[in-house]
């Protein structure tokens, strides 16, 4: 299972980024190989429109099955995410990535649209 996190940094102790489309980084944790990798998403900062769907495309390309984030994706991003089998968990915006993962494992995060 590949789990994606929206985050402010690139390791387990980084703060989560509550935003989806404009998140600084996306962290990917592969539960099978226990590898943590990241993708720098800051290039979207200059773009005015459509960053949500673009970020969704990146999740798709990396084969993420679970997304853990803060506020949850907006309408356009949600439209794009509908195309993939992805479980979205929200409300982790104030946590570190590690805390968010633990909260997810304990079933403490709400499932978003």
């Amino acid at each position, binding site marked *: 299972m590949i789990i994606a996190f929206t985050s402010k940094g690139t390791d387990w102790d980084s703060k989560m980024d509550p935003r989806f489309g404009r998140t600084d980084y996306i962290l990917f944790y592969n539960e099978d190989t226990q590898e943590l990798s990241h993708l720098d998403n800051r290039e979207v900062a200059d*773009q005015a*429109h*459509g*960053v949500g*769907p*673009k970020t*969704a*495309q990146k999740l*798709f390309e990396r084969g993420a099955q679970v997304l853990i984030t803060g506020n949850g994706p907006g309408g*356009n991003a949600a*439209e*794009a995410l509908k*195309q*993939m089998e992805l479980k979205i968990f929200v409300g982790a915006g104030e946590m570190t990535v590690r805390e968010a993962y633990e909260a997810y494992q304990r079933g403490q995060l709400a499932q978003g649209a």
Partner: protein
Amino acid sequence: MKLAIASGKGGTGKTTLAVNLALYAAATRRVALLDLDVEEPNSGIFLKGKLKREKQLFRAVPEWKKEACILCGKCSELCRFNAVLKLGKHILVMPELCHSCYACSELCPENALPMTQKSLGFLRHYEQDGLDFVESKMEIGVEMATPLIEQTLAYAEAEIAGADLQIRDCPPGTSCSVINATRDADFALLVTEPTPFGLHDLSLAVETMRHLDKPIAVAVNRVGIGNDDVFRYCEAEGIPVWASFPHDRRVAELYSRGETLYDKVDSIRTGMDAIHTQISSLGGGK
């Protein structure tokens, strides 16, 4: 002469001024009134013209042809609006993000993204005593107002060539819609009210119009409420105040019944006369 009636703040009286000025001026010259506030056009509430023409407006967006697609992903890479996404074996077009630039469609090696027409809403052209009135109304669910505004301006250019004064009731704010509605106008008349909120948004509108190198003047509505900071601001910035309208309960009553004001309230008539004199002195004609 193309006169844009704009404002920063909403609800300052753009429509009221545009409609009354149009009717007032139509007594002596050929006038076209365009309601470009396409998200909620309401000049029509105060007019009783006869419908001359109705036209559905469209804009082109790409449609994915799965059978022709080789999934090369070029479309998704080159769309600067992120409106075309390649999601695995699926190309997803987001019509609301599309700016109809044709790039994906033209550059697709397999012609798998032909452009198709998407409805934006309707344009309606009315005639009333020497006044041509055109309003466009966006369809529910359409997000982008600018294509509708551009097409409405093009329609007026082509179909109402005889009018020597074109008055535009513009959308509020300072966003793309306002830029589109004012960009090629000869003059922008900014309507505000003498309140801190009115002044704040007026200053944003002034800044916007200066970016567009647009000559401007101000009309102040509901004078008597708030304070005189708006007048001090205009003086300091060297912006002429063409008219000020006193706060008047009778105006609100007439307005609430959808009635015109220039023919019933002296202060409004005086204001329209002052504005019309200024317009005429700018070259009056074309």
